[in-house]
Each structure stands twice: as C-alpha cells, then as structure tokens.
C-alpha cells in the first residue's frame, strides 16, 4: 500500500511537472515559431489592472477598469505593428478589495503571470506595498489614481503616475479653505487609509500655513456609515469648514448626517468624494459642498467630450472618477511599447520616462520621480445636482507639448515575455 501510494504520487508529480513544462513551452514555443515562419502572428502583451471590484469602493474600481479596458480595445483596434507583428493587448483585471494585504497578493499574481506592465492599483493603500513587488520584478507600474506622494518618493524606477499627487492637491485644498472659503476654524476627518490620512495631513499643513486653526482632528474608517458621534463632537468646536479625507461611500452619509445634526459648516473633500455617486447619495445635502479633483474637468480635457460620449455609449453609465486617467495610463504604456518597438518590460521601462503623450486628460510628461509634470487641480462646488467648476489651479500653459513622436522602426522586436 505504502509503495503503491508513493509510486502513484511519484507518477502524479512527474506528470504535473511534465504538464508544467509543456505549459511553459506553450507560451514561448509559438512565439519563436511564429517569428521564424509567419511574423504576422499577434504579439500578445499582458497588462495587469488592479482595483477594488468588491466592497464599498467597487463602483469606483469598476469605473477605473472600464477606462483601462476602453484603452485596450482602442489599442487593439488600431492594428499597431510591433516588429512586424500586430499588437494584441490582454487586460488581466484583478480585485484587490482596496485591502493592502490583497494588493500584495494581486501584485505577486501579476509577477507570476509575467505581465508586461501594470496599470494601478487604484488606492494608495494597495499601490504602496504592491510597488515594492513590481520594483523587485522590474515591471513598470503606471497608477492612474494612487495619489499618496510616498508612491513616487521611494526611488523605484518602475513607479509612474498620471495623476496629480496629494502634496499638490492637499496644498490647493488647504489654501482654498483658508483663502476663498475664508475659514478660520477647520475640523478635519480622515478614514485612516494611506490616501485619506495623507491628503488630510497635506491639507492641514497648507491650511495652517495660511492662518486657519485646526479645531478638531477625527478619524473613521473606510467601512463606516455612522458619523453622528464624531460629527457631534466636531459641532461643539464650531468649525467653518469640515475637511474629509476619504472616499464617497463615507462622504455621502457624512454630508447627510451633518445636515441632520444641524451643522452649518461646509464639507470640503478631495477627489475621493468628487464623484457622481456622492451627489446622488448625499441628495439635497450635497448642495454647496466642495471637492477637488486632480487635473481639469473632464469636459475641458483635451479628449474629454469624446471620451464621455464613448464611455456612455459603451457602458451606459456616467464616469465616476478615474476612467479617463486609467485610459491614459494604458495609452502611455502602449506609446512606450510603440517607441521601443518591443513589449519587453525592460524596454517599456526605458521608454516610459521619455513619455510625451497627448492624452485624454492632459499632455503627459513625467518628472524624474515618475510623477506627472505641471499638474493641475480643479475645485468644484455642488450646484443643482452637478459638480460646477470653481477654479483650476496650476496646469500646463495653453500651448501644449508636441505630439508623441512617431514610432521609429527600430531593431527587430524580441518576442514578448
């Protein structure tokens, strides 16, 4: 019995090993064969995309994935030739549940799947730990929405971001509160995530530098719906403005509960609360609340109106937040592949810093850290169920950078990884 069993298990592991070897071969063999015989076979490139697809932020995560998928579909439809082969991009969409632990698991999954590049993650909390994994594996990572400054500060050559970081956004928000809103006393609430606490701290610094007083600093989490207790505490400190660093699942009930408790202060939020869902779910209480979003309003983006049309036609839903940025993040990678005439991670990495791409959101060029240059921040106020632009701070001068250089045919492309 014992020997039989060990024989069986030996056989089993042998066949498994064989199968594995066969699988491994399968990935490379056709590529080599195709190159030798028919160079017209598609060059398959795998892009990882990670965002929360379940949980409270699932609607925003799905929105991001839709944006990335649109870019992938467009790039595939464009019949891009890389080394004589048609580029065929596959998007591997993963759900990281906005959970840092899950984020690193997804990152390892992408590394094991040998993706050529990663788009994401969506949240700063998942992006930061995952960026270590990608840096070690030398896989380029372009985040469309992780705005915590720390992401590009760690010196990883693999980390890029096509959105204004929170250092810039928090500063604009803080100066706006103390300036235009003329707030003397400000209460700050954050959701204790990398994003929420990060932007709240930048906000505090900027507001205090402008002479405002932080009268209360409270914390909640990214699953809570009841803020009555902390809002009651804040009410006693009589703030002019309440700043919330967090996402719309918390921001909308917070706005409702502020009104219920008779708090007169204005609610000011970063991009996490600047969504269509906030307006819908906060109902009448949304009126007069402020938020900011990196970049210019979608309608004013270079490719904004067309993108809104296309998104609506394809998914029959309004854009929540990051879809245009995710679109650009994919396109920046596609452009790098075009310039390099190769989809190798190393080749993409070498080309990404030289990016100069006219995207949907803006003209994208990176600074030495991998952050977008000349970042803009726009402030909005809720008016009649819409986010109305108040002002845009920063950004590029009217004359945009020249278009991305045409892809120069380079040396024959090596097979995709």
């Amino acid at each position, binding site marked *: 019995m014992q020997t039989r069993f060990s024989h069986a298990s030996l056989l089993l592991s042998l066949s498994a090993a064989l199968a594995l070897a066969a699988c491994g071969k399968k990935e490379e063999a056709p590529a080599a064969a195709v190159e030798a015989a028919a160079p017209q076979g598609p060059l398959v490139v795998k892009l990882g995309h990670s965002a929360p*697809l*379940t*949980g*409270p932020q*699932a*609607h925003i*995560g*799905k929105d991001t994935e839709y944006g990335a998928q649109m870019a992938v579909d467009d790039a595939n439809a464009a019949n891009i030739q890389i080394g004589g082969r048609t580029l065929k991009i596959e998007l591997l969409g993963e759900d990281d549940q906005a959970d840092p632990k899950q984020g690193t698991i997804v990152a390892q999954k992408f590394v094991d799947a040998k993706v050529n590049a990663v788009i994401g993650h969506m949240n700063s909390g998942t992006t930061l730990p995952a960026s270590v994994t990608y840096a070690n594996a030398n896989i380029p990572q372009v985040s469309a929405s992780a705005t915590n400054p720390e992401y590009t500060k760690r010196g990883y050559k693999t980390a890029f971001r096509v959105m204004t970081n929170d250092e810039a956004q928090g500063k604009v928000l803080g100066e706006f509160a103390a300036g235009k809103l003329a707030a003397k006393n400000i209460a700050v609430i954050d959701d*204790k995530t990398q994003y929420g606490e990060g932007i709240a701290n930048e906000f505090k610094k900027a507001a205090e530098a402008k002479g405002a007083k932080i009268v209360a*600093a*409270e*914390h*909640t*989490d990214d*699953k809570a*719906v*009841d803020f*009555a*207790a*902390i809002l*009651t*505490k804040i*009410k*006693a400190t009589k703030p002019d403005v309440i700043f919330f660093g967090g996402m*719309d*699942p918390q921001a*909308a*009930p917070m706005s*409702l509960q502020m009104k*219920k*408790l*008779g708090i007169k202060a204005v609610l000011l939020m970063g991009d996490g609360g600047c969504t269509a*869902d906030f307006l*819908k*779910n906060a*109902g009448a209480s949304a009126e007069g609340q402020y938020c900011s979003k990196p970049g210019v309003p979608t309608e004013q983006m270079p490719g904004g109106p067309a993108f809104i049309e296309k998104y609506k036609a394809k998914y029959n839903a309004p854009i929540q937040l990051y879809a245009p940025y995710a679109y650009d993040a994919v396109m920046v990678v596609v452009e790098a592949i075009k310039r390099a005439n190769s989809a190798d991670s190393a080749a993409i990495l070498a080309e990404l810093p030289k990016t100069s791409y006219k995207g949907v959101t803006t003209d994208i060029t990176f600074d030495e850290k991998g952050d977008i240059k000349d970042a803009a921040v726009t402030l909005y106020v809720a008016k009649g169920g819409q986010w109305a632009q108040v002002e845009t701070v920063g950004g590029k001068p009217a004359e945009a950078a020249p278009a991305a250089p045409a892809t120069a045919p380079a040396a024959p492309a090596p097979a995709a990884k």
Partner: protein
Amino acid sequence: MPFFTSKPVRFGLVETFVQQLINGLTLGSIYALVALGYTMVYGILGLINFAHGEVVMIGALVALAVYKALAATLLPPALILLIGLTIAAATCMVLGWAIERIAYRPLRNAPRLAPLITAIGVSIVLQQLAMLFWGRSYHSVPALLPTESHDILGARISDVQIIIMLAAALSMAGLIVLVLRSKLGRAMRATAEKPEVAALMGVDANKIVALTFIIGSALAALAGVLVSANYSIAHYQMGFLLGLKAFTAAVLGGIGNIGGAVLGGVLLGIIEAMGAGYIGDLTGGVLGSHYQDIFCFMVLITVLVFRPSGLMGEKVSERA
C-alpha cells in the same frame, strides 16, 4: 474659584452630551433590532446564523426596489413605506425559511462547526447575489418618513430616530410576549430545552425552527428598512458589519436572551457614541475617535471575563 475660571467651560457641553446619548440610542436600537434575530435562532438551535446580517441587507434592497417601482404613483409616502416593508418582510420570510431548509436543517445533527461554516457560506452567497442583482453602487434611499428634527435640550432628534427606538422596544416586547405567553412560544421553549422530548410531546420541532427563522427574518426586514431610512443609503455590503456588531451586542447581553439582545445593543451603541465623543478628551488626545471599536470590545471582554454568558445570559455552558 480658580478651578472653574482657569478652564473655560466649553459652550454646549450639555447639548453635546445629550446629542451623543441620542446618537448612541439610535445606533444601539439598530443593533438591538438585528441582535434579536441572532438571539432567537441561537436560543432555539444554539446556532449562530451569520447570514442574518445579509437578510437585513436583502430586506433593505427589496424595500428600495418597491419604493422605486411606486415612486411614480401618487400614493402617500408613508403608504409606500408600508408596502415596501410588507413586501420586504414577505421576501425575507421566504428567504429565511429557505436558508434554514437548505443550509441548516440537513446539518441539524452534524458537528457544531458544520452549520457555522454553511452560515458563513450563505452569507457570502447572498452578498454576491445581491451584488450581481443590484450592482456595486451605493443606492440612495428616498426619504419617505418625515425628516424634520425636534430639539431636546439643544440636541436634535429626527422622526426616523424616534421610530427606530420605538421599533426596537416594541419588537422586544412583542417577542417576549410571544415566547413567554403564547402556545407557539411554549413550543419554542420546549424545543430549545430538548428537541427530542418536545417531539414526544407532540411539538413539530422542524416547524418550530422554521417559524423561528421566519419571525427573525421579518425582524431583519424591519431593521433593513429602518437602517436604510436612517442613513438614506443601501448597499450590498451593508449587512456585514452591521451583523457583526449586532452579534457582538447579542453576546454582550447574553445570547439566547431576548431582553439581553436589546440591552446589549443599546449599551454597545451608547458605548460607541460616547467612546467616539469623549475618548480623545479623556486620554488627553492620546487615543482618538478611531479607537471607538477598541473601546467597545474592551467592554465586551471585561463583561465576558466576569459574566461569561453575558449580562442577562442564562447558563448555556453545556451548549456553548
């Protein structure tokens, strides 16, 4: 009196305290309503029905679907709410019955761990089904109940909050009468005591257990409707954390005890509100409001150390 003059009296101290008390009572009444469902099932079967929070969520979302369908009609809002509640309750009763029939009854005599695992499984299945059916987005729940607030000692309380407190109190009273005074209640207590002996006395244990699930699920629907009315939002994951907190409340009050569930719920709500409101000031800013959960679980642990069966719990050691 330098003691008073050196420290400026913060304006609105009383108002803030009363408001926190109201916040806590509202939150606690919600916990209590959900905890009643946990405690009923535990009292009869000794089973922790982890899917109960999900039934609350289904109740809220079904009611919301009814509101939306009836929004175009010119029915008075209160009537729409009642129709929504009725349909939600009916749906949840069927759901509760089905859960018991499919996931728990076949495991009635299995080791205790097995139904616990199926309970968690049912909870996940219901969440995912709701996500597929209603989507990932938060749904805005229309205000069908009067929204004006009343002033009590400078603090504000809305009609919805008053209704929630009344609903919790009445549900508890109703259940106690049902269990202690009715024939069905006697059968329930007999089944809880010893199902085999109860069966010999002519009690159909399967029927009693099914009825317990049906009543508990109707209460869950009520809780779902009230929670979504209070926060004006509904979401496919709204039941999870709520269920966990309500379970905690049931344990705190003594699981299996109906009065205990309400006591535990209200206590937990008040501790949370007071914790969030005052823990920062009490510790000189060392601990912030985000420690409110630590605060209430510390209370839970302390209570369980001295009273392992909860505040009002009976000895259930041979069971637990």
